C-alpha cells in the first residue's frame, strides 16, 4: 500500500489556510475602517475649529479683524495632546498666527472640485512633524472692500498614530484569536468529517477471519461506491474460498475411495495368483497404490493446513485432551507393531488458544512418523510439558535420523535416506512445521538423547 498524504491533514491545512486568509482580510478591513474613522474625526474637529475662527472674522474700520475664539483651539486639545498651528491670511498677507504655516493646495479643478468656502484638507510636513491641515476661505467685508480671507488650522498626528497603534494591536489580537479559534474548529471539523471512515474501519477490523459478510455499517454517501466495491470483492472472495474448501473435501473423497477399491481388488487378485512373478507385480502395484493414496491424503492435508493458516481461527483448547485424542487415534496402528505408547500428560488442563484441527494434524504426523520409523515391540514416549513454553515431544527407539541434514526434512516432499521401503510422501514434518509457525511456535528435530531413536518436539508460546 502506497501512503499518499492524509485526508485529515489536507482537510485541516486547507481549512486553516482559509481561516488565515480570512483573518488577514478581517485585520486589514478592520484597521482600514477604524483608521478611516479616526482620521475622519480629526478632519471634522479641524474643520469645526477653522469654521469657528472663520465665523468670528469681522470687518472693522476698513480692515479685517478677528477675536480668536477660545473654543476654536481648545476643542483641538480635547481628544489628543497634539500640537496645534493656525494662520489667518487676508489677501495673502498674514493677519495672525504662524506665518510660515503652509496653506493646502487647492485641489485641481476636477469634477468634484470643492465648493468655494468648503474646507480643503491636506497632510504636510511642518516644523519636523506630519500635520493635518485644513483651510477655509471666506470673503469678508462690504461689497466695496471685500477681502479674501483664508483660515488655516493644522494639528500634528501623534494622537492619530497612537490610536492607529491601538487599533492595529486590537485588530491583530482579534485576528489572531479568530485564526486560533477557526484552526481549532477546523481540527474538530476534519475529525468529525472523517469519523465515519474510522467507524467503518473499526467495524471491519473487529470481524473474525471467517466473517466475509457484506459491510452494513452506516455509510456516508461519498463512501458508498468504495463500500460497494469492497462488498462485491468480498462476495467473490467468499465464493472462491468456499469453492476451494469444497474442492479439498471432495478431492480427498474422490481420490481415496476409488484407490481403496482398487487396492482391495488387487489384494484379492494377489491371493488368487500363484506364479511368484505375478504375485510380485501385484505387490508392487499395491505399494504404488499405497503411495498414491498416502500422497493424495498428505497433499490435501497440506492444502488444508495452508488454507486454514491464511485466516487462523483460534479457540481455547485443552492441549492434554488434544494429545490424548491423537494417541487414541493412532493406538490401533501402534498395536499392529506391538509398540507401547507411554503417555506423560499432566493431569491439570493446559490451555492454549489455537486451531484444534491444525494442531491435531501436526501431532498426528509426528506420532505417525514415530510409529512408522520404529521397529516392532518398541516404546514411544509422548510428553506434554508446560515450562517456559508449551512443548509436545515424541521420542521413539527407532532408527533415528542418522547424519542427515535435519533442517531439510521440513521442506516439501523431502524424505530421509533412512526410509528404506517405508511408504511416505515427505510432507508430514512440513505440515507439523507450518502448524507450529502459524501458532507462533516452532518444530525441533533431534536425536533421542537417551539412546537409539529420534525426538521430535512441537513448541508453542505460552
Amino acid at each position, binding site marked *: 500500500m502506497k501512503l499518499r498524504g492524509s485526508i485529515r491533514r489536507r482537510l485541516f491545512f486547507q481549512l486553516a489556510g482559509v481561516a488565515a486568509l480570512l483573518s488577514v482580510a478581517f485585520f486589514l478591513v478592520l484597521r482600514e475602517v477604524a483608521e478611516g474613522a479616526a482620521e475622519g474625526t480629526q478632519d471634522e474637529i479641524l474643520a469645526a475649529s477653522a469654521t469657528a475662527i472663520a465665523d468670528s472674522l469681522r470687518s472693522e474700520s476698513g480692515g479685517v479683524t478677528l477675536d480668536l475664539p477660545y473654543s476654536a*483651539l481648545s476643542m483641538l486639545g480635547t481628544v489628543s495632546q497634539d*500640537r496645534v498651528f493656525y494662520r489667518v491670511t487676508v489677501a495673502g498677507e498674514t493677519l495672525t498666527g504662524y506665518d510660515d504655516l503652509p496653506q493646502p493646495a487647492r485641489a485641481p479643478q476636477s469634477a468634484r472640485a470643492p465648493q468655494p468656502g468648503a474646507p480643503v484638507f491636506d497632510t504636510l510636513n511642518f516644523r519636523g512633524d506630519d500635520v493635518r491641515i485644513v483651510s477655509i476661505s471666506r470673503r469678508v467685508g462690504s461689497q466695496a472692500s471685500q477681502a479674501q480671507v483664508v483660515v488655516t488650522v493644522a494639528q500634528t498626528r501623534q494622537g492619530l498614530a497612537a490610536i492607529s497603534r491601538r487599533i492595529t494591536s486590537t485588530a491583530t489580537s482579534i485576528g489572531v484569536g479568530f485564526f486560533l479559534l477557526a484552526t481549532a474548529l477546523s481540527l474538530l471539523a476534519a475529525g468529525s468529517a472523517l469519523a465515519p471512515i474510522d467507524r467503518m474501519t473499526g467495524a471491519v477490523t473487529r470481524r473474525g477471519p471467517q466473517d466475509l459478510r457484506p459491510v452494513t455499517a452506516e455509510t456516508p454517501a461519498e463512501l458508498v461506491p468504495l463500500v460497494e466495491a469492497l462488498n462485491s470483492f468480498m462476495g467473490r472472495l467468499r465464493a472462491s474460498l468456499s469453492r476451494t474448501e469444497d474442492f479439498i473435501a471432495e478431492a480427498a473423497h474422490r481420490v481415496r475411495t476409488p484407490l481403496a477399491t482398487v487396492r482391495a481388488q488387487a489384494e484379492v487378485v494377489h491371493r488368487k495368483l500363484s506364479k511368484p512373478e505375478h504375485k510380485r507385480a501385484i505387490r508392487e502395484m499395491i505399494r504404488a497404490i499405497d503411495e498414491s493414496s498416502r500422497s493424495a491424503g498428505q497433499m490435501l492435508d497440506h492444502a488444508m493446513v495452508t488454507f486454514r493458516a491464511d485466516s487462523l481461527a483460534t479457540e481455547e483448547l485443552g492441549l492434554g485432551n488434544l494429545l490424548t485424542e491423537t494417541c487414541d487415534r493412532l493406538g490401533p496402528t501402534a498395536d499392529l507393531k506391538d509398540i507401547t505408547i507411554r503417555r506423560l500428560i499432566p493431569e491439570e488442563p493446559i490451555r492454549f488458544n489455537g486451531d484444534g484441527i491444525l494442531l491435531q494434524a501436526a501431532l498426528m504426523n509426528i506420532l505417525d512418523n514415530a510409529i512408522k520409523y520404529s521397529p516392532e515391540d518398541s516404546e514411544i514416549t509422548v510428553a506434554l510439558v508446560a515450562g517456559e513454553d508449551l512443548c509436545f515431544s515424541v521420542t521413539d527407539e527407532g532408527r533415528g535420523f542418522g547424519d542427515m541434514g535435519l533442517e531439510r526434512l521440513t521442506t516439501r516432499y523431502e524424505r530421509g535416506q533412512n526410509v528404506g521401503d517405508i511408504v511416505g510422501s515427505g510432507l508430514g514434518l512440513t505440515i507439523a512445521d507450518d502448524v507450529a509457525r502459524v501458532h507462533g511456535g516452532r518444530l525441533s528435530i533431534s536425536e533421542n538423547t537417551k539412546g537409539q531413536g529420534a525426538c521430535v518436539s512441537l513448541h508453542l508460546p505460552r
Partner: protein
Amino acid sequence: MRIASLAALIWASVAVAAQGFEVEERVFYPAENEQSVLSIISTADREAFEPILLAFQSENPGVSIDYTITGTTDVMQAIQDEGAVFDLAISSAMDLQTKLANDGFAQSYPGAPLGRLPDWASWRNQLFAFTQEPAVLVVSTADFPGGITPRTRDELIAVLRAQPGKFRGRVGTYDVRRSGFGYLMATQDSRNSEAFWRLMEVMGRLDAKLYCCSGDMIRDVASGKLALAYNVLGSYARSQKDLIEGFEIIELEDYVNVMLRTALIPASAENPADARRFIDFLIGMGGRPELVSQSGLPAIDTTSFDNNTALRPIRFGPGLLVFLDQLRRSSFLKSWESALLQE
C-alpha cells in the same frame, strides 16, 4: 549642604553679553566632585528654589547646578528666539510654556514617574507641573474686622458698590499689561465668569491701583494702604503670612483659578539626563513636606481638589495659545483698559 551654598558663586544682575534676555540673578552651585553641570533657566526666586536645588544636589552629588533667574517672557525669549542653551526651563507662565512645547522647542520625556499625579499635571510628556498656586483675594484685617469677608465675586462686587467712599483708591490688582501672571489669571477669569468684567468695571470706577507684583500688593494691603487686592498669587501670600501682619487670604467660593508651575526640557538641552532626574525630583516633591515648607512652593496635592471643588487647575492645551494671539491680546487689553482705566 549649607557649605555648598556658601561656596555658591553669584553673579547678580549680570546681563551676559550676546544675550538679549535680561538675567536677574545667576547662581552657581558647584558639586564637590563635579561630573556634569545642569543649567536651569527659571522664574522662581533664589530664596524659594535654593532649598530644592540643594536637596537635589545632595541626592545627586556629582551634579553642579547653574541657576539663572529671569522673567517669564525672558524665558520664552531666551529659548525660542535666541537659542540660548539650557537643560531645563522652569516657569510660572503656563501659556508661554505651552507655546514653547506646542511650537516644538521642548523635548519629550516619556517615562516620567507621573504615578500619583492627575492627568492635567502634564502635557505631551513635555510639560510637567510640580506646584499648584491659586489666585486669591487678599483683604486687610482692619477693613474687614471679625472675619466677615466676601465669599464670591458677586458678593465682592456688592461690597464694593455699597461703600464706594471707603474703597475709592484702595483696591488693587495686577496690571495685566505688565504681568504675565496677571494676564493669565485675567484671561482665565474672562472665560470662567461674566462677573469678572463687572468686577473690573467696579474696580475701575473705584480708581483701582495697578501692580506689577504680588509682593507689593500684599505689603500695601498689610499696611492698610489698600483694603483689598484681587488675583494675588496665593502661594506667595501664604509665605508672607508669617512675616507680615494685617491681611487675610481668601479663596473665593465660586471658583479659584489654580496656576501650575511647570518644567520643560528645551529641545536644545545638552544634559537632558540630569534634567530628567531633576524633573523626577520636582514631581516627587509632594512626598517631601519639609521642602514644600522651606520653598513655599505648594506641591500638587490631589486631595485638595477633592476637598475644595472651587479649585480649578488651568488646563494645558492649545486653548492656552488663544490669549497669546496678538489680535486677541490687543482686543482683550482694550476691553480691560476700557473697564479699568475710566479717566
